[in-house]
């Protein structure tokens, strides 16, 4: 099993880099994953990651990118709830990459 090291702690990840145990997440895990993917984390990234974690907490699923886009538009406004903006933040796909940073499983309904 692969691991990444965050602040001296070994955290287990699967072959695609997603956390094996959701409970292992803490904010620095996201920062470390972003470093591996060469994404510089800013407040805009954290808005989406926090949003995803809240969504998962409530619905127990990681939303598909289409659903994420719509929900972000509703909560954070149209200028953020569009796929161009979200892909700029997360070039490997706002669903897959942002969910990974947020410590969630791969989104349900992303194909």
């Amino acid at each position: 099993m692969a691991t990444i090291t965050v602040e001296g702690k070994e955290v287990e990840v699967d072959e695609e880099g997603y956390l094996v145990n959701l409970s292992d997440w803490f904010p620095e895990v996201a920062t470390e994953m972003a470093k591996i993917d060469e994404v510089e984390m800013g407040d805009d990234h954290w808005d989406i990651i926090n949003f995803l974690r809240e969504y998962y907490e409530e619905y127990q699923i990681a939303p598909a990118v289409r659903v994420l886009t719509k929900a972000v538009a509703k909560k954070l406004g149209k200028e953020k709830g569009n796929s161009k903006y979200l892909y700029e933040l997360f070039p490997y796909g706002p669903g897959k990459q942002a969910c990974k940073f947020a410590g969630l499983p791969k989104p349900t309904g992303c194909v």
Partner: protein
Amino acid sequence: MSDGIKKFMFVNTKAPYGTVYALESLEVVLISAAFDQDVSLVFCDDGVFQIMDKQNTEASGMKNFSNAYKALGDYDINKLYVEKESLEERGLTLDSLMDLTYEDEDDDWAEKPSINLVSRAELADLMDQQDVVISS
């Protein structure tokens, strides 16, 4: 239909925990939503227990995934049919079920109920209109 949209009906007949059928079916339903098809869900027989309100799975050690049904509206899946006879046979009413809603894009995002109570005979008619019926 000529535009490539087919009518898919997913029929849920089993209790939510104890087997993986309910969870697996829900996953397939959420994935199917990505393909812009006409998707509806049926809850009949013990399947009505899947959308019961206030589920508590602590004693069973299973993950309570019932809140995921509340995300169906976000996925534009808003045709949920509950068979009246199945509810009655189990001493349940609509009030026993979760409040599942969707926001109607064509009506200023008004929140509307997704659950439709149908009789066994009405359900048979609905099934007759489908291109694909998948039961679990």
